[in-house]
């Protein structure tokens, strides 16, 4: 089954990270993505631009309302995601624990349901 691994973290940690460490972490991400691909379970994923670039959209009374910023102001922000296909939650947990940001942020694991956009078109 497919799981979304949502990567949450405090953006200021990244902003204040010494350059050498940022480089190391990014390299760890590259290695991690390669490991997912080599295992044949990678279905997608990306880093997301900072919440400063976020726009939130709501439709109320048939009017589109856009607001600057994320849906919720929280201490930890969604910074990126992976979509993987594995047999069980246990496997997903094992992969989630290897995401470099798991060491200082948190990874939320969400299973996908049968309602997938690509299967509906």
């Amino acid at each position, binding site marked *: 089954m497919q799981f979304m691994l949502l990567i949450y973290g405090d953006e200021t940690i990244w902003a204040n990270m010494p350059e050498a460490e940022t480089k190391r972490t990014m390299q760890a991400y590259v290695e991690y993505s390669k490991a997912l691909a080599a295992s044949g379970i990678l279905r997608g994923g990306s880093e997301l631009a900072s919440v400063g670039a976020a726009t939130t959209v709501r439709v109320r009374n048939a009017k589109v309302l856009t607001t600057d910023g994320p849906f919720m102001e929280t201490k930890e922000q969604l910074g990126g995601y992976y979509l993987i296909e594995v*047999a*069980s939650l246990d496997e997903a947990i094992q992969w989630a624990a290897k995401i470099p940001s798991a060491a200082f942020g948190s990874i939320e694991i969400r299973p996908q349901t049968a309602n997938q956009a690509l299967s509906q078109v």
Partner: protein
Amino acid sequence: MLARALDALQRRDGGRVLALLIRQFRSFDLAEDALQDAYAKALQRWPADGVPDNPAGWITTVARRSALDRLKRQLRQVSIECAPVAASDAPDMAGMDEEASPIPDERLRLIFMCCHPALAQPAQVALTLRSLCGLTTREIARAFVEPEPTTAQKLTRVKRKIAQTGIDCELPDPNEFVARLASVLAVIYFVFNEGYVASTGSDLLRPNLCTEAIRLGRLLHDLLPEQAEVAGLLALMLLHESRREARTDAHGALVVLEDQVRSNWNHDQIAEATALLDAALLRRRPGPYQIQAAIAALHAHAPTAAETDWLQICALYSGLLRHLPTPVVELNAAVALAMSTSIDDGLKWIDRIEQSGALDQYHLLHAAKGDLLRRSGRMDDARVHYQKARDLATNQGERCYLERRILELSKDQ
């Protein structure tokens, strides 16, 4: 008569059959419904046909058939495009007869599944009691003094999470086994403690959670005889349980260890626990449950309170602190230090714990402090702490005990 036999069968073999069905059909709800069908059919058929030679085998076969029938009916309702996966997954029923071979034991997988760390502990507990102990939703609600719909909702939610997240009914990887086992042991010990402390209410129809936890401990020990910590937990629970009769007086007030009538302890349970613990310790894989059991065993084997081997208990607590560095364990270690070496040093340690604020609302901190102050003759200070403990305690038996202490100290003045 038949209903009683079925009840007993359900208690003894229900968990095992359910575990098998869950593993085969990968659905909690389907397995539970199918098992209920089988019991209903037994009530219908056995009076006329007689009880089969292998009742558990009969129930298993009938439940499997019912599960398949239910699956087929579901498939007919769902459109054909969605069906092929489920249809090809359906187990092959050919060659199954009612004199079935022994039922493979899938309960270990079921325990690990129910206690999966991705589930919240209240849900782990409810699901374990439901599926492995065969408690009804109503019984679980009674046991935790919560409204039945709350328990029902908790169970529905947790089953949904299991179904949606693909929590596996496979055993954990060897490299995760110990961590996952810890979560199973924590659930069982939680159930035991709930029963032991019974912090709220008194309801005669409450199922005995201590008995259920010991049942689970025995089951797990049977399934994993080589795991020293499993034996340690079982020994620990038996040692606590052995004092059940002695720890309350005729009025329901708590009787502390020191004042208990030792001949009222259950010596069969103590002997069983000691044998379990001795065998476990030989495996040289120490862990927090074995150490706690060893401490309880030293208390159990002291002929009188005065003869308690506090020095060894003190050493065991420092070992336990390495495994479980929690403020409560630290408090117990401080008491052991006071009893074995120096009351003043023990009190100083408790003061440090108190200042850290970690046990602010914990009545036993003040009870322990009151007790040590009383032993060192500082009666006024002792009374203040007994009073604090009484105000924080929620259990009626404990409050009675503390009340009595306060009264005694007032008389001594």
